[in-house]
């Protein structure tokens, strides 16, 4: 008998256990070939069998060598539960099973903090599902007809001036604009959130960009997509389609060398600039791109060598909001001749209201949007401790910021966009609608887009391997063999179809409350069956 070595990793220490049915296995090898993590391997197993083949019992005992699929007992190669093996198996002979007794969290800290992608796996509670659209128009104020009536589903993006600050002059009983005002674009209230080329494969980024352009060009929905920190292909920067993209600048300034060089060749202005201060998935932490994913084209776009790219947690030289306004906002506004809205994205925090107040009171009036990213936002790579233990839920934060503006009569002047967990359960329209009723002008989402492309990751620990360069769906990897798993056109189509349905569902929610334009701040349309949530958000408690 072998001595038990309890410090050795065993398969039942891992978060997912592979169940392999040798009796159904045809030994085709597809599962092993498909597993990007090397979690399974073919081995030869010694088996002892006794068979009687004659008419009379004549048990014959044999020892045979049988090739089987075995799980690798190695933390680095632990099964992520992605289920690619199950997808490719022609005979349903293999699948991963969640192991409730996993000890991985405890045992995998030998080489510093655990890194992974995805969302928080600890704080996946759903405030939005405790809120219902409860103010339905009946009798005196009939509901609108979601099919027949027209709906104006647009959100402002840019700094909105108070009516008495508008530089209007009167001529022959008509108002005319006497001076230039800050740029404001009316966009679709769903923004494709910042996922960089690097975090995503080029094909995945292309699929999202394709969907964005298609929605604008063919469907009349002015959806905007944020580039993420890491620049954009020069071809796109110099194309007409740039107008649909919000260029992001984050603390690493990755990609800006190329963007600046492309500026003289741009044929149109970008849709906006987004200054990323922080993100909800890992507040206080900069962007992170593991060396495994810094492929040649990523090096070219970003102008970096192959190395792990860790953006600093802060924009260097920025130590106050005032400074942020003066330096970053002004220079970004100036870069595009004050024709492009410049917004700011922060991780939701206990201090978000203070930040928003400062922006609202900024005398230059050049902050064109406040994006708040909640704890349930996704990321391509972060320390797990940040993902699971830092951050702030988005729902009450949006509400707090909105009410802070209401208190000062400044609501709507700096559009609020909320993200982080929007569409986590697949119902992005309902989530967006509720956020809008609570005061958001719109929402942004990223994770759901890659889930539509095929990402199988979830907030219950499935996959979450965006950081490894081994994404089994070809979405978060730069490995050309894996990237080919993703069909760009089908992926883009999936996103387009989802957004078109999102639009219809928004109408289905706007119609019963009798609104033809977005009900920003219409908290009276919402009720909650949870008293604490109702009290916190200032909506009606019902039971």
């Amino acid at each position, binding site marked *: 008998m072998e001595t038990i070595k309890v410090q050795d990793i065993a398969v039942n220490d891992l978060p997912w256990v592979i169940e392999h049915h040798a009796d159904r296995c045809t030994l085709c090898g597809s599962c092993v070939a498909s597993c990007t993590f090397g979690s399974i391997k073919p081995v030869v197993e010694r088996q002892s069998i006794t068979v009687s083949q004659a008419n009379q019992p004549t048990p014959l005992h044999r020892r045979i060598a049988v090739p089987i699929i075995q799980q690798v007992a190695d933390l680095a190669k632990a099964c992520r539960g992605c289920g690619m093996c199950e997808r490719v198996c022609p005979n349903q002979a293999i699948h991963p099973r969640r192991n409730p007794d996993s000890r991985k969290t405890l045992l995998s800290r030998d080489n510093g903090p655990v890194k992974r992608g995805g969302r928080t796996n600890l704080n996946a509670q759903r405030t939005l599902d405790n809120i219902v659209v409860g103010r339905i128009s009946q009798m005196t104020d009939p509901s609108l007809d979601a099919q027949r009536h027209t709906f104006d589903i647009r959100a402002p993006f840019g700094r909105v001036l108070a009516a008495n600050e508008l530089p209007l002059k009167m001529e022959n009983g008509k108002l005319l604009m006497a001076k230039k005002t800050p740029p404001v674009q*009316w966009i679709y209230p769903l923004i494709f959130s910042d996922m960089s080329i690097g975090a995503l494969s080029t094909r995945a980024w292309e699929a999202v960009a394709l969907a964005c352009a298609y929605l604008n060009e063919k469907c009349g929905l002015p959806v905007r997509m944020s580039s993420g920190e890491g620049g954009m292909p020069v071809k796109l920067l110099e194309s007409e389609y740039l107008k649909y993209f919000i260029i992001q600048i984050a603390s690493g300034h990755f990609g800006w060398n190329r963007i600046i060089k492309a500026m003289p060749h741009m044929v149109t202005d970008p849709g906006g600039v987004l200054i990323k201060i922080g993100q909800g998935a890992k507040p206080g932490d900069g962007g992170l791109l593991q060396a495994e994913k810094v492929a040649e084209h990523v090096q070219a776009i970003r102008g970096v060598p192959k190395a792990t790219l860790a953006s600093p947690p802060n924009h260097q030289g920025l130590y106050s909001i005032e400074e942020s306004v003066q330096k970053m906002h002004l220079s970004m506004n100036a870069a595009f001749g004050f024709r492009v809205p410049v917004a700011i994205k922060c991780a939701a925090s206990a201090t978000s209201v203070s930040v928003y107040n400062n922006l609202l009171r900024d005398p230059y009036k050049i902050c064109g949007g406040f994006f708040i990213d909640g704890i349930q936002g996704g990321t391509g790579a972060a320390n797990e401790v940040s993902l699971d233990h830092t951050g702030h839920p988005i729902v009450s934060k949006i509400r707090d910021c909105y009410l802070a503006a209401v208190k000062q009569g400044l609501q709507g002047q700096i559009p609020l966009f909320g993200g982080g967990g929007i569409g986590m359960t697949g119902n992005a329209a309902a989530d967006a609608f509720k956020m809008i009723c609570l005061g958001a002008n719109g929402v942004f989402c990223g994770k759901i887009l890659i889930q539509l492309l095929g990402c199988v990751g979830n907030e219950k620990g499935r996959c979450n391997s965006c950081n490894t360069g081994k994404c089994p769906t070809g979405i978060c990897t730069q490995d050309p063999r894996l990237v080919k798993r993703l069909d760009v056109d089908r992926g883009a189509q999936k996103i387009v179809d989802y957004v078109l349905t999102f639009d219809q569902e928004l109408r289905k929610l706007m119609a019963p409350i009798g609104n033809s334009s977005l009900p920003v701040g219409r908290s009276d349309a919402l009720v909650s069956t949870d008293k604490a949530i109702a009290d916190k958000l200032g909506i009606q408690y019902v039971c």
Partner: protein
Amino acid sequence: MCRIGSIKSKVPVHPSKALHLMLPQQEGHDNSGFAMVMQDLYGIFSNYKDKPLLSLACTQAGAHLVEEYMDSHNFLQLAEWIPVPDKKPDLDIQAMPYYIFRNYDYPEHCDSKEEREELLLDTRLALREILDCAGEGYVYSFWPDVLTLKEIGDPRDIATYFRLWDDNGCLVAKNIIAQCRQNTNYDIVRYAAHPFFLQGYTLCANGENTFYTKNKEFQKSLHRGYIGFESDSQNFLYTLHYVLHELKWPLPYYKHVITPLPFAEIDQREDREVLKAIRQSLANLEINGPNTIIAGLPDGRMMTCCDSKKLRPVVLGGDDTMVAISSEVCGLNEILPHRDMTKDIYPNEREIVVIDNELEVKRWKQ
């Protein structure tokens, strides 16, 4: 449900005319109250047209509180009309003990138009607060040449109580805006009955404003006079006042604020820059829901418009001496049976219809 109506006449008319306009529509308005604002007054108020008139319903203690305040703030009483009620038994009316309509002279050193407008508003707000705190009454308007009467009960009985059926020439005006219903959505509060009044602007609305919360949250910080919010229809008045009185924009822009054009249509227009700026700066004053409004302006003009989907109708008709606006045409048929009906106007969802002081009717397309 509400039904609203208004009369603009070259010849001063009695409130009974407004009642005749409203009563045929009673199936729609439930007869739960009567409220009216009369402007451009004649009869007993003829000699005081330039002096502010206080319209008040109160108790005796409330009357004392008001007198005390007005005296201490140097308002000199010039004239007073206290209706002597006809207290027939079985009248359906929840009457207040006193109804006071009193003209004052402005205090000294208050000469400019702006100063006077602000003073009258501040005075009304102060009186309202005093009466609210004491629970002793209601003050509806304090403005030259404007009289407001509101009461809970059956409009016919209210009219009997105030002797409004006696067309004796005492109480007449060229402009009357009226409505026959108390607020039945929420608590019965006298302040919730339209028409509402603020600095020369009078407004009543038929319908719902589903952007009430948005409007209210925004209007609260826009102006000290935007208070109460007992009814979602007050939002219409406050926005009218804000656009015309505060921002000093021409009337057609009011429609652009409350029911802005869809972006697709704005983009096609020459004035898109201005319209877009208005839409985004005043997004919180947009009105949604089915509604129609009738408003009286400080210069005596009267206007009507409806929601952007035309979910609530209104009709305007008249002859050479009188033009009336009504939720239902049966009201017009009652008081203007011989008018040319083919000239009746049913405003569409993108129109403002204005009656000027010469009874000329203008239609402005948004």
